[in-house]
């Protein structure tokens, strides 16, 4: 049974349709990537999964349960979390407070402390800046914080919306290494990316979204050599 499954999802912003009959699935333990150009509907797909926009038609099932009518906080409670586009850290809060917000669903203080310590081990930069306001961090540090904030929620599945956007090549590498670490720890990963090359290198499978429709889906190794993908997303 799939961990996450979208079936024939239509999403609208007012009168304009952004997602058209989107169907995709992510199996437990996989890294699945969703590729697509700007404005193809990648972020809308994420927002629809998390109830930030409601789909007009179709179903979304997570862990055997329909979640398309649930409010966002109820979806998070089920162990499905999002690292949103543009990081969205709480700029007027400290690094530590951001991580505490990530652990909002956790009630056991000892577990929270342990999870935060784990994030600090993963990203020592964050520990150095523990008491600094998140708004004063560099873009790369904010991305680490956004990922760390999602990890302290102890997710069973993590969705990431363009985590490499605007980062230096070294940081991009760090982000993709981290994603592989996350999968190794048993967490399922659904990754939206513009950096198709990097994404397909670590993913098991991939989907290609074009103007709101899934036009291709295959094993990542097959997509890398696919002519359409090479022409459109891998620079020929």
């Amino acid at each position, binding site marked *: 049974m799939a961990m996450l499954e979208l079936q024939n999802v239509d999403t609208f912003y007012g009168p304009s349709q952004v997602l058209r009959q989107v169907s995709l699935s992510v199996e437990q333990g996989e890294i699945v990537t969703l590729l697509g150009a700007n404005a193809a509907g990648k972020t809308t797909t994420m927002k629809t999964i*998390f109830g*930030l926009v409601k789909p007009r038609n179709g179903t979304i099932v997570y862990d055997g349960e329909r979640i398309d009518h649930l*409010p*966002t*906080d109820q979806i*998070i*409670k089920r162990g499905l*979390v*999002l690292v*949103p586009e*543009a990081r*969205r*850290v*709480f*700029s*007027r*809060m400290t690094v530590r*407070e951001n991580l*505490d*917000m*990530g652990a*909002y*669903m956790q009630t056991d203080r000892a577990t929270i402390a342990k999870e935060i310590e784990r994030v600090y081990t993963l990203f020592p930069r964050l520990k150095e800046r523990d008491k600094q306001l998140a708004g004063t961090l560099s873009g790369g540090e904010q991305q680490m914080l956004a990922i760390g*904030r999602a990890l302290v*929620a102890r997710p069973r599945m993590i969705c990431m919306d363009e985590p490499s956007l605007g980062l230096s090549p070294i940081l991009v590498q760090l982000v993709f290494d981290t994603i592989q670490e996350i999968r190794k720890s048993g967490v399922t990963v659904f990754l939206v990316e513009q950096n198709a090359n990097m994404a397909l290198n670590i993913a098991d499978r991939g989907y290609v979204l074009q103007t709101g429709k899934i036009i291709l889906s295959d094993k990542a190794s097959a997509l890398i050599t696919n002519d359409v993908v090479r022409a459109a997303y891998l620079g020929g």
Partner: protein
Amino acid sequence: MHILAASSFDTGLFFQQIENGITLGAIYALVALGYTMVYGIIELINFAHGDVFMWSTIVTLSVAQALHIDHVLGGFALVGTLLLLLIVGILTSGGLNVLIERVAYRPLRRAPRLIPLISAIGVSFILENVAQLWKTANVIAYPVFFPTNAITIGSLTITYLDIFIFVLAVALMVGLNVFTNRTKMGRAMRATAQDPEAAALMGVNINQTISLTFLIGGALAGAAGVVYSMYASSVYFLSGFQLGLIAFTAAVLGGIGNIQGAVLGGFLIGIIEALATQYVPNGLAWSQGVAFAILILILIFRPSGLLGQQVPDKV
């Protein structure tokens, strides 16, 4: 400083007005907090907030009348009466504010920003008209039950009531500060104020958090309503309109959305108003005009207020 240079300057009078201003400012600050917290979280000027404050004054008046409180109390009777009126005032305004959000603002949350503002003005009218129907359009005396004693330091007179108001206001502000900065719910409230969508993605229930904000803002106005009635020893169905506008000015002066700013703005406006009463010719008539002149000046020269606005991040 030119004031100090005046030849016949009476420093005693000056400090007395500062003292009056601090007492008034403490009340303004409590009401300003409600404006600023609500604006900080949903970017709405809750025009009904002043009337939410007024409802605390009329409901607690009815309670005091029902209990035949009509003379100065002492000891347990005083403490018990204060506690009872404060609890009633806090529950009235806190509950009313939560109800207003639920009925008049929440259904409009995704509407253009002008729409909930009009709804707020409508709620304000309703609250005033119902209060007028119930309590008439007359100024009604609020029973004087608090000891009217005062301490004097030189020529400065500080009444026990002034001290009580100041201590209560500061205690509530410290409590609010501890809540927002040290508790999980307070942190969720600040997160929601910065980015509601991101807060929801942490698992925060946004509707509940917004209700909590209205509850706290209303509760502070409720406490202010009780002490203001004691201070003015009268109640009037339009009192919230005037006081609300002044408290709103205080919130803008400090920086809308900024909790520390509302406190600073409240005390500053209180002190400026008291000094204007003393030093502007025919000052009593001008004291509120001065408050609004300040509002206009801030909006022109420093629209983000003294300590800076704190509004949701734009994504």
